[in-house]
């Protein structure tokens, strides 16, 4: 084929450009160590790279944001639960100490103060928060668990469910002694009829006290209204009686004045103390029913207006309706509200713990402590009265026989009261020990649950860490080239470039005319 000089020049140009392209390519690769500059260089690598980066960003979200947040939440929960457990243990210790016989007046006062402080502290722990969001309240993270200030306006209609174990017996004491104020009373002594007597009744304790007396509660047992429900029981003589239960509201003052009298078929609603007192027949009938029917339930709906500081907000524990704005009632339903964080692909971890009647921080703990306090206060008062009368007996004013005889009678009555009060207190301390141990157990159970979730989280964290580094490595393998490979390629491309230049210079330098 005829080859012209211009063809040789043209070819040299093309060849030099070809080697330059390679030199340029490896030059760029040396700087960023990436296999491809644009997706069309290798579409498969480019798309794979996209996928891997997507996965990496997801893993980063889990590992760097969600998992640390979940860890913090669980830590705060664990700390709060530990504190609560300690507090309940302290109450238990109080019970143990208190069940000793030898208590002085000072001891009793100290115990009373401690119990008050412990109760406040316990429910304050329930208000613990993490970054401004309360941790024990389920989804309502912007509200505290208890009222932080006394509230007089909120009105709630609360539904509470009871089972047969909520029917407990309580001792009521009539005729609390009033010390004689004048000589006539001193000399007259006190009639037997006016001395304190103990009345034992079966009752159901409602979650709150200070309920609204103006609204009658609706009570149903297994679906049937309690008021008018047929009952069967054996009366004091042993004959089987069938009757109907009747429900009535009575204020505590009136019931006290009636010496805690209750008919066998009567059910009394005492709003001030938040109790539903059952007549003997009613409670017998209910217990018999419950033996045959394992699903025995009693539902009660009552209203409460105004809450004390430290009262649990009803919407946290119960199905209730907020009737504060009567035109716009808001209904709340109690349900399991799990706040779940996505800690890994398709893996949700529950991070919160919800307080509730059936979980930790039930209202029962508060009311138990309150009853303890009442018993201690009564014991303090009774012992004070005894001391006072003893002191009066020593006074010269009452040294005469009539007064002494009268005061002796007073002393007997006071000692009776003191015996009742001390006895009640001991018994409560005794049952309190078991009770508070159980509460502590339930808190510890929850702590274990939190701990196990924390462990799971740690495992997931490890996994995510490994996965993160694996994906980073995959991305690097996919996109990057080994620096040494690039250098070798670059060297060979550059050598080719140099030889192309040399060849070009040689080929185009001479023509025939140089020789003519």
């Amino acid at each position, binding site marked *: 084929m005829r080859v012209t000089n211009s063809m040789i020049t043209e070819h040299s140009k093309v060849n030099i450009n070809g080697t330059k392209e390679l030199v340029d390519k490896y030059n760029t690769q040396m700087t960023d160590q990436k296999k491809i500059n644009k997706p069309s260089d290798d579409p498969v690598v480019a798309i794979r790279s996209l996928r891997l980066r997507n996965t990496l960003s997801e893993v980063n*979200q889990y590992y760097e944001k969600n998992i640390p947040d979940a860890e913090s939440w669980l830590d705060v929960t664990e700390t709060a639960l530990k504190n609560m457990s300690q507090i309940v243990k302290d109450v238990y210790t109080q019970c143990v100490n208190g069940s000793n016989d030898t208590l002085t007046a000072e001891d009793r006062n100290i115990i009373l103060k401690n119990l008050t402080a412990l109760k406040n502290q316990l429910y304050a722990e329930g208000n613990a928060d993490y970054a401004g969001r309360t941790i024990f309240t389920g989804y309502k993270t912007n509200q505290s668990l208890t009222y932080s200030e006394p509230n007089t306006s909120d009105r709630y209609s609360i539904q509470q469910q009871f089972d047969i174990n909520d029917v407990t017996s309580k001792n009521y004491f009539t005729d609390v002694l009033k010390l004689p104020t004048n000589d006539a009373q001193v000399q007259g002594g006190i009639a037997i009829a006016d001395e304190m007597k103990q009345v034992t009744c079966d009752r159901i304790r409602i979650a709150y006290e200070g309920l609204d007396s103006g609204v009658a509660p609706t009570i149903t047992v297994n679906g049937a209204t309690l008021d008018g429900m047929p009952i069967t029981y054996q009366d004091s003589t042993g004959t089987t009686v069938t009757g109907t239960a009747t429900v009535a509201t009575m204020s505590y003052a009136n019931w006290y004045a009636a010496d805690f009298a209750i008919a066998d078929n009567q059910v009394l609603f005492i709003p001030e103390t938040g109790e539903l007192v059952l007549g003997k027949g009613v409670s017998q009938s209910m217990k018999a029913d419950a033996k045959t029917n394992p699903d025995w339930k009693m539902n009660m709906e009552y209203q409460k207006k105004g809450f004390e500081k430290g009262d649990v907000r009803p919407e946290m524990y119960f199905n209730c309706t907020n009737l504060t704005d009567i035109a716009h009632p808001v*209904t709340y339903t109690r349900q399991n509200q799990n*706040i779940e964080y996505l800690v890994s692909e398709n893996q949700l971890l529950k991070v919160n713990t919800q307080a509730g009647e059936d979980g930790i921080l039930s209202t029962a703990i508060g009311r138990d402590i309150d009853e303890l306090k009442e018993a201690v206060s009564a014991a303090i008062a009774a012992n004070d009265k005894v001391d006072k009368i003893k002191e009066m007996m020593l006074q010269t004013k009452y040294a005469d026989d009539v007064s002494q005889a009268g005061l002796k009678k007073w002393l007997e009555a006071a000692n009776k009261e003191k015996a009742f009060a001390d006895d009640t207190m001991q018994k409560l301390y005794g049952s309190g020990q078991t009770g508070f141990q159980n509460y502590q157990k339930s808190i510890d159970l929850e702590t274990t649950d939190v701990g196990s979730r924390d462990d799971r989280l740690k495992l997931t964290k490890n996994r995510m860490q490994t996965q993160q580094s694996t994906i980073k490595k995959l991305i690097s393998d996919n996109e990057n080239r080994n620096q040494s490979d690039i250098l070798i390629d670059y060297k060979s491309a550059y050598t080719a470039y140099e030889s192309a230049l040399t060849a070009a210079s040689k080929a185009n330098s001479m023509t025939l005319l140089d020789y003519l």
Partner: protein
Amino acid sequence: MASTFFGLTIASSGLSTFQTAINTTANNISNVDTEGYSRQEAIKTAAEAIRVNAKYGSTGTGVEVTAISQMRDLYYDLKYWGNSSRLGEFQTKSYYLNQIETYFQDDDKVTGFSKIFSGMFDSLEELKKNPSSLDNRNSYISSALTLTDYFHSVSNQLTSLQEDINQVISTKTAMINGTAQKIATLNKQINLIEQKGGKANELRDERAVLIDDLSKLIPVEVKEEEVVNSNYPDRYTGMTTYTVKINGQTLVNSYEYNELECIPRGKDEKINVSDADGLYDLYWKNTSMKLETTAGTMSGEMKALFNLRDGNNSTFFSGEFNKIENYIKAGGGVASQITIMDPTITSPSQITMPPYGTITIKNVDFKYDSYQMIEQSDAAGNKTYSFQFQLSDKMEDGNVSKLMNQKAAVGTDVDFMGIPYYQTQMNEFIRNFTKTYNDLILKDGVDLNGQQTGVFFVTDDLANGGEYDYNSKQYTESITAGVTTRVYNSDYYYFHMNVQNISVTDEVIKDPRKLATSTKNEFTNGVSANDLLKKLSETKDKTIVFRGGVGEDFLQCLLSDVAVDTQKVKIFEDNYKNLSKAITNQRMSISGVDNDDEALTLVKYQNAYKLSSKLVSVLAEMYDRLILQTGV
């Protein structure tokens, strides 16, 4: 016997011949680097013999240059022109596709769709953990805005690229016209010169260079035929007819040329709803016929430009014209409403037609003012689709019978994944995605105040400001006899939505509390209830939104389209480049000037000239002896 001084004539013929030959060589040497120059050769023939009254009868009379002809092989020229148009096509495609590729880039250096999309869902994760926090709400809303901004910017880049290509088309058309004019002028000049005998070598070279340039833009067929004098068919006239055709249509016919003009499409002639305004179509100026630049037989840069600018990968609307009825227009006058069955578009998100425009039924254009999409689902769940178009005028009865049951289409099938294709793909994605998302919110989503919210992703009204009203632009549904009929009007909310006008509702931007994060049922359970957010986060990777894939796969679909296409075009470009190199080689081999060749020729003619001049001196001496020294 010949004349005494006959030898001188012969010698002088040699002198002048070799002088001409050296001039030709000089011409070659000077033009060694001129583009398109074919080396010329002086064709020497022995001059006609004359009869001599001698025993040897006739004697030669020397040499003469009969022609200076160029060494050029038309075969390689034709091959070169054929290849050059394909090379031009793929070079242009490669150039612009590389640009389009960068718009969808998403890697370490450039933040692309995938990063922004997963960033938005990461913000959603944070929001899930703490729905009531205003900070989290704000960051989520702004990441959603980043997503819509991304779409705006990509779409704007694509549209401006479309406009650039449009300008380039206009420039190149002017080039074609100019070249045609020059060729016609050259034809005339060449014929003038060659008519008088000889060859117009330089002009032919110039003409060939013009055709070289022209063939890059459009595929040309060149034919040169001798003009034959019908009275004397054997006589050599020296004139030729030179025709240049584009795809069978004449561009240049000897001294006449036809021009192409760019006619912009009107506002109601848009083919794709995302097209820029005023895109050009090529028409012949003399016949007003359209030049189909995207036909299968076309190639060249023009085809590449049109493919890139108009390519919709056959995702355009077409169907069968089935029914017609007349109706009274709102402003008075009778017009036709036509029904199209078996459409290619079977989902509201795939709509590519503008709200008013032109529909073509078997090559006859009709303007329409609006349309409805009708979806009928029967009890078993099978869906049939049909469209109704309200034309601007009444269709004549002659047309009705001719066009019934023929194919109707809005736009044409341009089988290339060009800019409109990427715009409609993005449109389809955002329509599906935002509809899925908005529907979840509208079903029972409430905001921090417990109020029902509007939609989250909205369509801005770019012309008038503000947002399109969602509620007034919904479809109507009716049920008769177990068949549910849904009618979507041409101003249906999601028809309007496209990559340019998608946005996040102003209400939520101003007040992040109005972002819906919970359902009505869960709202009373507290501010950390996030069940709605859980459902929304499934739109990332659990709901099918686009081409059988989930949301985060969107960029992978599109990027693989563009990357594979670009790679293919690059491979073709390399192939044609190599072919072009081989053909150019052959051309240069035949027509190129070789220094050594010319040097040898120079030496050869120099010697010949020396000999001839020696001959003259010898003859002169002879004559001298004869005249001055013989006899007296």
